[in-house]
């Protein structure tokens, strides 16, 4: 992962003002430098132990509905509502949804609220061993559909904007092919679509994974297996270098806070329901059935050409988890006449949780949505 992708929160090391630099500073001795380096290492070690305690997802919200599988969150309005169509955010089944509301100045959700949208979010709960046979059919036709119905009922509207991220974007697309009558707009961020064109390490590892055997023997995909995949993504530029940066900036509270929030999210990895993971790897990554319109949810075929609603497809040029070549073909296979592909020079996480995203991505996304939400 590039620094921009996984460390969207990181700021450059604060340099002293020129006036201070002019002051005659005594060069530290080697012994002093070693002592200081040791102090920083010790401080970093202690701080890393507290990563789990840092607060995330602080935008005010209420739990509208809660089941064994999910919590449906409704965020409190921050300004007067200017868009009539509510937005339902469908988060991925990988890691936790608070990455969309990591901290106030880099929150995807907060930005949408400040632009006058009514925002709902599906916060998936970790599956248990009893959920081994829960499939995409259940996620899409049951859980997402239930959430859509709840939001429509609460807002007294007949259609909403479905807004998915990563795996959630693929699920939102699946849902739209089957229940288009409830969807006004489909806005997806980094969807997995054409996996034959995927150039990522994840796609490479998925190609030879005996996922049927895994599900039969283990059941749900264990978090450890996901960590193993993550550790293969930019292992040194990210995996090692980020800790050097932390030690260097350990006295910068803002930097440390940003670092810990991302670190908490990275290691907050629930398992993935076995049957869902089997479909994800075998049907979507290995056989590429989704873009070929051959994927089945239960008895229903997912035919992307059925999609006629306005489509916004947001991709990141430096995405190393879902390559833009994998996401972009969605615009070629749907039947929508109003469709747009937005490309940004950032990475998978930088696209949603960074200052770059706040300044460059969200204003354009908001503008597109607002024009279609009246």
């Amino acid at each position, binding site marked *: 992962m590039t620094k921009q992708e996984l460390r969207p929160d990181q700021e450059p090391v604060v340099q002293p003002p020129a006036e201070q630099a002019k002051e005659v500073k005594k060069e530290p001795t080697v012994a002093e430098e070693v002592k200081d380096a040791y102090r920083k290492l010790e401080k970093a070690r202690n701080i890393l132990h507290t990563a789990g305690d840092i607060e995330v997802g602080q935008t005010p919200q209420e739990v509208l509905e809660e089941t064994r599988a999910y919590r449906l969150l409704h965020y409190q309005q921050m300004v007067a509502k200017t868009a009539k169509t509510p937005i339902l955010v469908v988060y991925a089944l990988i890691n936790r949804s608070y990455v969309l509301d990591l901290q106030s100045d880099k929150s995807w959700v907060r930005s949408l609220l400040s632009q006058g949208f009514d925002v709902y979010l599906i916060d998936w709960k970790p599956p248990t061993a009893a959920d081994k046979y829960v499939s995409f059919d259940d996620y899409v036709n049951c859980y997402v559909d239930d959430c859509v119905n709840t939001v429509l009922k609460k807002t007294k509207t007949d259609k909403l904007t479905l807004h998915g991220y990563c795996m959630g974007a693929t699920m939102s697309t699946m849902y739209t092919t089957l229940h288009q009558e409830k969807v006004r707009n489909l806005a997806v961020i980094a969807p997995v679509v054409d996996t034959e064109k995927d150039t990522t390490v994840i796609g490479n590892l998925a*190609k*030879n994974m*005996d996922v049927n055997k895994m599900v039969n023997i283990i059941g749900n995909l264990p978090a450890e297996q996901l960590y193993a995949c993550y550790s293969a993504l930019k292992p040194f*530029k990210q995996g*090692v270098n980020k800790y050097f940066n932390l030690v260097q900036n350990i006295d910068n509270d803002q930097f440390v806070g940003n670092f810990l929030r991302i670190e908490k999210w990275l290691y907050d990895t629930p398992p993935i329901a076995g049957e869902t993971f089997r479909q994800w790897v075998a049907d979507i990554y290995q056989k590429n059935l989704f873009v070929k319109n051959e994927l089945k949810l239960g008895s229903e075929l997912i035919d992307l050409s059925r999609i006629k609603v306005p489509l916004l497809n947001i991709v990141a040029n430096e995405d190393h988890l879902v390559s833009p070549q994998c996401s972009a073909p969605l615009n070629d296979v749907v039947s929508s006449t109003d469709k747009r592909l937005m490309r940004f020079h950032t990475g998978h996480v930088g696209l949603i949780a960074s200052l770059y995203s706040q300044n460059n991505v969200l204003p354009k996304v908001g503008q597109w949505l607002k024009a279609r939400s009246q």
Partner: protein
Amino acid sequence: MAENTKDLQGFTQEQMNKMFSFWTDVMKLPTIGPIYAFSKDVTSYANDFVSLGKVMAELKSSMDSYWLLVSTAYTRAIKETMERAPKQLTSKDDLESYRRAAIEAFEDAFTGLFASPEFSAVYGKLFSSQLDVSKAIQGIAEKNFKALNLPTRSEVDEILKDVAELKRSVRDLKRSLETKYDQARAST
């Protein structure tokens, strides 16, 4: 000497006969229960352990292939670091340059490795071998569960599958009832 050996043989034979008849009697005693089940399955257990040994040998072979690729990438990264990094480390800047060169070299070597088709195949085989070991251990555990008259993992799996299918059926029935209800309400 020969007489002593004969005595010893006779003694051994006699002892062995006693020992076997003792165990034969013990095995005859309980016709139900865990001891009987264990004794009945002894050959099967032996086969299971032989199979476990075999899959562990395969895992070792897969691990060797995996580590060979990793160590080759590591050697390449070290070589690249030596070429890219400053030759003399005399200042703080030199150390910083060395760190950057090492990170770049290791990143190139390992990302190249992880993105290669060869690594994908070897990793897939290693993952599969690990699963085979888990399967062999589960097979042995299942026998113990059966012997203790406890539900096995396979049996619980069947129940979970049935529950998942039942939930889907209930969902579909509920939806179709709702649709019919809405249609009826609309027509009245």
